[in-house]
């Protein structure tokens, strides 16, 4: 599974660094480093909402606060 987080200007301002760090921590803590590849991308053109994160080809819009829920549901949940 590839999780891509936008690190462009707009998403950076909206907190992509916090999300990257949170996801890196959660992936490591749950021992999913072999299953989940975290990647960065520059602007994907969907900046209007929150920070753009895509899981394989599905696009999500996150804030640092819902990162944990997102991880449980969309990453851990799907791998289970």
């Amino acid at each position, binding site marked *: 599974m590839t999780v891509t*987080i936008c*690190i*462009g*200007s*707009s998403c*950076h*301002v909206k907190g*992509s*660094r916090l999300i*990257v*760090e949170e996801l*890196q921590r959660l992936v490591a803590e749950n021992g999913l480093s072999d299953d989940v590849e*975290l*990647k*960065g*991308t*520059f*602007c994907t*053109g969907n*900046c*209007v909402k929150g920070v753009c994160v895509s899981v394989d080809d599905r696009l999500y819009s996150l804030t640092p606060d819902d990162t944990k829920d997102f991880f449980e549901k969309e990453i851990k949940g799907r791998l289970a």
Partner: protein
Amino acid sequence: MNNLCTDIGYKSVNKYGEQLCGDHIEIVEQGENSTVIVLADGLGSGVKANILSTLTSKIISTMMANSMSVEECVKTIAATLPVCEERKIAYSTFTIIRVVDNREAEIIQYDNPHVIFLRDGKNVDYPQTTEEIEGKTIYKAKVLIKENDTFIAMSDGAIHAGIGMTLNYGWQRDSIIEFMELSYDNEFTAKALSTILLGECDRLYGGRPGDDTTICTVKIRKRQPMNLMIGPPSNPDDVDKMMSLFFSKEGKHIVCGGTTSTLAAKYLGKPLGTTLGYMDPEIPPIGVIEGVDLVTEGVITINKVLEYAKGYLADDTKTMEWAYKKDGASQISKLLFEEATDISFYIGRAINPAHQNPDLPINFSIKMRLVDELAECLKQMGKKIKVSYF
């Protein structure tokens, strides 16, 4: 014309307790490839010395740049300088370094410690002739210059460093030469060399300089062109034109901005890679495109570069962290401030719809202003700047 240019960097410390420096540096460019640099040290310290040295350096640099002889300069100074009330003399020492066509350096000195000339980091004793003008003994020398030739001019505050404190007779010129030979590195800029030497003088003075001390380094270096592109063109049809102009230029290439790097990657037919390494939590990670020397995010990174540029010009040591940090802004700073001599900016004027969100602290006019301000700062660092808009 050759591919050499002069890198000039100077720095002063004031006599302890003085607010004004009695030394003054004046730099006048004579066309593209010739420069006159004058370091003057006024009699005494404080306001009086400051006026004397400012007048002296200003008069000499202006006259020399207009091809007038040293004799005329010295006569004019003697006739113009105000006479000191206490000492009944008008006096200011000076050192002139004149680089002609980036081919030859002419050194003319009066009563300052003699200019130190390093070739490949080793001291070279250059032949000098003397001339009496208005009862003053003037030393003259001419040197054909090569890449990495370094000329270090100083006021007598340098050789007096530490007198009666850490050293009995001050810091002798020979010892300064030894120190600079040991400190020298081809990678160092003129400003870095001046800072190293001045720092040592200040240290010998125990942080309380007994005299105004100024170091001015002139380093002959190869021109290093640098190209920086930021923002997509306002007309999407111009992308190819902008890219081909940018990538056809000699020198290193820096691409800033997510959309811009995506376009550059597409133009080059190479994938755009990104990293997730936050070297600095404030600065978005850099990207990677084969064939581009540096790929970074746009407006946040450039904003930081501008902050570093202002700090560099103000000699603010607190903002020198770019020199060792690895984030995008620090890497751009290193390339622009130290490595580059000629910088071409390629600025796209497209409005990024993503940045028009009123909640965001960035917008189009800010981006344009940032780049203009950065170009201005780089000009003040002595870089040749060209800006093209698309």
